[in-house]
């Protein structure tokens, strides 16, 4: 799709439709840097992307029993994700219908009721209004059925990943995820049970920058040799691989950009222990290898063992050790949560090794993540410089090809996935 607005590149923001802020022609792909700095753009994103589409809110293992709940946000709106005694998961706007007070202040907990602290209205954990304090102040025909907590009109789950949409209609969750389902399935199949359990504690980091810096970076295969040169030297010192070998590995694989804004960065897998983490684990823990072989062919294991960072538009990444959730707070404020998970059905020692590997690279004190965050804030500082209104996301446009599912496949250092993200961004912002 080609979208070239017919006005000068340096026209003021007020002259542009939101959808024009992504500018694409045959060989150039640009985004207007006001998308990182304009509060008006941010507000429009919340309406058009986060409040209309499917947003990740929790993993089912985080609320396993009836009565369990977690609070979350959809865009900037507070919600409660609650498991009711009927077994269903309800996503409730965290706002008392009386005067707007949040009915749940905790991050996580267990309760069959949410009670508003202001005037004591009480709601069941499916949102039903069950109690109004001093009810004689309302007429006898006051219909409590109309004054329950507002439920997200659509909630869906894929292999335990819970998504909610604040829009009553639109594409179904299956339709939204369809382009990447095959890769999400392979990602889950690293567990012989095909499932994960999220740990109770998470890494979290804020940064003074726009949410899209993090969204763009998770499947960016171009920055590693530079932003993570420190990490590469550390691996070389540890005898794990010389820098030249790491760089060759990082050049292997590909990027993929999909419909609906999804994308991924992929490193080749294989059964050879030298080739992939899964291959190494299968050799180190024979029972793990046997469990995978009993479920999958060698060809399938090759796919399963490919290391992929999978972006599920707009706020979720699936990483090797973590579910990464991107929470936009304001145009220049973001919080990121890294929910580390256990692979179900693997030896404890294997998971323990994954946790140590996670701590080593990720989180606020890791040897990798903070270098990325340093870039996000450097970007946010840099785009204050004006007169240069556009950022360039064309890398690899001249050499990309179409894949089997209609996705765009690029070199591992190319920007195919981030272009997919912004094509969907443009589509959402135009409708």
């Amino acid at each position, binding site marked *: 799709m080609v979208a070239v607005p017919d006005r000068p590149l340096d026209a003021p923001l007020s002259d542009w439709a939101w959808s024009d802020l992504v500018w694409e022609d045959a060989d150039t792909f640009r985004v207007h840097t006001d998308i990182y700095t304009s509060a008006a753009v941010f507000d429009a994103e919340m309406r058009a992307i986060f409040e209309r589409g499917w947003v990740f809110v929790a993993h089912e293992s985080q609320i396993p029993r009836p009565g369990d709940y977690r609070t979350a946000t959809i865009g900037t709106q507070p919600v409660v994700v609650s498991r009711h005694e009927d077994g269903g998961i309800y996503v409730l706007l965290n706002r008392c219908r009386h005067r707007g007070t949040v009915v749940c202040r905790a991050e996580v907990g267990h309760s069959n009721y949410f009670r508003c602290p202001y005037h004591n209205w009480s709601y069941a954990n499916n949102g039903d209004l069950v109690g109004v304090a001093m009810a004689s102040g309302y007429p006898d025909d006051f219909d409590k059925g109309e004054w329950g907590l507002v439920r997200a009109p659509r909630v869906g789950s894929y292999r335990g990943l819970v998504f909610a949409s604040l829009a009553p209609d639109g594409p179904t969750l299956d339709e939204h995820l369809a382009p990447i389902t095959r890769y999400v399935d392979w990602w889950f199949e690293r567990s012989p049970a095909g499932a994960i359990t999220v740990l109770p504690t998470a890494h979290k*980091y804020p940064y003074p920058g726009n949410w899209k810096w993090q969204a763009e970076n998770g499947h960016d295969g171009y920055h590693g040799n530079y932003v993570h040169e420190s990490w590469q030297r550390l691996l070389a010192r540890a005898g794990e691989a010389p820098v030249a070998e790491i760089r060759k590995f990082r050049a292997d694989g590909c990027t993929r950009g999909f419909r609906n804004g999804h994308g991924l960065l992929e490193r080749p897998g294989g059964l050879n222990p030298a080739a992939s983490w899964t291959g190494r684990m299968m050799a180190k823990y024979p029972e793990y290898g046997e469990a995978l072989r009993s479920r999958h062919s060698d060809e399938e294991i090759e796919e399963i063992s490919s290391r992929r960072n999978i972006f599920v538009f707009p706020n979720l990444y699936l990483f090797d050790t973590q579910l990464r959730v991107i929470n936009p707070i304001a145009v220049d404020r973001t919080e990121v949560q890294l929910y580390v998970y256990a692979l179900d059905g693997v030896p404890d020692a294997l998971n323990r090794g994954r946790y140590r590997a996670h*701590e080593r690279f990720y989180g*606020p004190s890791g040897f990798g993540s903070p270098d990325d965050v340093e870039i996000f804030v450097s970007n946010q500082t840099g785009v204050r410089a004006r007169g240069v209104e556009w950022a360039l996301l064309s890398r690899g446009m001249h050499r990309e090809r179409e894949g089997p599912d209609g996705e765009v496949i690029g070199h591992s250092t190319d920007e195919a996935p981030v272009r997919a993200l912004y094509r969907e961004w443009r589509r959402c912002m135009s409708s």
Partner: protein
Amino acid sequence: MHELVTAAEPAADRAAAAPGAALTRDEAEALIYRECRLLDQLDLEEWLTLFTEDGLYWLPIADGEPEAAADAVSIVYDDATRRGERVFRTLHTPVLDQNPRSRTVHLAGNVEVAGRDERGDTRVLCSQIIAELRPGGQGQLGLNATRLFAARCEYRLRPVRDAWRISLKKVLLLDADQPLYNLTFVL
């Protein structure tokens, strides 16, 4: 930064550090103050020598015992190898997140000697306030602001040869379970 002039390392942490000896509060304070000074001077190679070979440097997300943290995720869970890597990356690699470097001031107080753990190591409790600043150019986001961290700390100390050494340094930040920006300096 001001260099502290010290003719020799203080001797207090060496006194009476024989196997089975009782740790005095003076000795505990001497060791903790020395550690604070080494960190504030960025003398991290020397800091590494304060630990026993099996020593653990631990920043939990939730309070608890260090053994249980093996099956959880912590902010930092550094054995000797990982501590060595942390110091190496900070001092000898092109890190972005410590360029510019953090300046710190560690303040330790409320020091109590609190019995022994099951290995016979002496437990020392204290509180620490750590001020941190990364200086940079005008208008650079993420820099130029002093941040304050408060923590309840637990040390476990063991006599090794003639000196008290750290078998555990646990730093339970007040905001351990909150979103935390750049904690790449040694707390």
